[in-house]
């Protein structure tokens, strides 16, 4: 075992780690925006629009993220709208996360008693306001742990941006491996970095989930 190799390449691996975190954060923001918009639109829209949005969500959830990333990167460039790997990865990951997040938001809001919506509408509040300021806040105890879980998923999924040649942690690790010909040590280091990023968050999900359940905020849990 040659662990010096890790120390020698630590700066590169940390650089890749920063890109990975930036990618996950950007896609989390983009995905939350897409997810909220989709969830609200599905609750407000008419039947046809609802069916169209459901189909779109099902297509994203029914196909591999890897293919979606390639479709954004290669597809856009084929129709004359080339994107750099980083923005392409953010767009692909955001669309993917958005589909899953919209289901998280919808599920959480469906768990809030109907009477809340009816009461809000009965006193003449606009529908969007009722959903955004009355229903959604009450759904948060169900939604927040699921959102942290999704962010952990995003941190791991950013590794697929490897196929776009983006120098996030996995690609950076692969480059270092190809140069040093010491794949085992480098891969262990890469795996440890992902673990250090993800494990505390997965413990946080457990704590937040337990606390919200104990305080009875999430009695209507699905």
């Amino acid at each position, binding site marked *: 075992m040659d662990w010096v190799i890790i120390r020698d390449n630590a700066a590169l691996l940390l650089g890749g780690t920063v890109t990975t975190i930036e990618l996950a954060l950007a896609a989390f923001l983009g995905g939350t925006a897409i997810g909220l918009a989709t969830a609200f639109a599905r609750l407000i829209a008419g039947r046809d629009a609802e069916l169209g949005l459901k189909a779109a969500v099902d297509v994203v959830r029914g196909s591999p993220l890897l293919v979606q990333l390639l479709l954004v990167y290669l*597809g856009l*460039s084929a129709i004359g709208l080339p994107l750099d790997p980083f923005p392409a990865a953010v767009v692909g990951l955001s669309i993917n996360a958005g589909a899953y997040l919209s289901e998280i938001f919808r599920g959480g809001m469906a768990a809030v008693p109907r009477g809340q919506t009816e009461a809000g509408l009965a006193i003449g509040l606009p529908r969007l306001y009722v959903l955004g300021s009355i229903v959604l806040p009450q759904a948060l105890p169900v939604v927040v742990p699921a959102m942290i879980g999704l962010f952990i998923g995003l941190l791991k999924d950013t590794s697929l941006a490897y196929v776009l040649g983006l120098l996030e942690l996995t690609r950076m690790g692969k480059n270092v491996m190809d140069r040093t010909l010491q794949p085992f040590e480098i891969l262990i280091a890469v795996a440890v970095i*992902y673990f250090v990023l993800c494990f505390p968050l997965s413990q946080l999900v457990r704590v937040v989930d337990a606390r919200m359940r104990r305080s009875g905020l999430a009695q209507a849990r699905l």
Partner: protein
Amino acid sequence: MDVVLDNLALFLHGLALTLVVSMSASLGGSAVGLVAALARMARAAPLRWLATGYVELIRNTPGLVQLFLVYLGLPRLGIRFSPLGALVTALTINNGAYIAEIVRGGLQAVPRGQLDAAASIGLSRRFTLREVVLPQTLHAIHPALANQFIQTVLASSVGTVVGVEELTQVALFVESRTYRTVEILAALTLVYVAVTFLLAVLLRRLGQRLDRGYR
């Protein structure tokens, strides 16, 4: 779509490999997951630690890195895989950790009274597990298991990174020869959507059959 039809044989070959890989990794992962879940509830503490370590390590690292570890890392320890063997192994190990959590949740959902009742009529521990606990566990978890199997089909697309000729790899190969990028990737997406949809329907039917004994 003519570009897909012209290369239909290739695509069908890729689809077949995707299905074989996903099925192997689902079955293998279920076996690993069951063992790991039981180990996490074992009396011997080291067994519990080992199983917990496995589950947490796998669930907190990317599948692609696990695939690289199997394919590029293990040769250091004298273990060599073909690309296909590495993909099935990595997906099985990955699935095993997620399925272990699913099974653990299901095992915990079996009421304690069931165990007490079984013990009071003199059933052995092993018999109780096999005939009382596991059937009720399966009843509780089959929707989550079905979802995990579907995720496996999608995850198998990482095989393209190590050159396994599954569906995505075949599509990229045809793309590189024809430059019909948008059509091919759109068709590829739709094929995955169709496969996962059909699989979901099939698994739901199977699940309903399982549920028949439970009202």
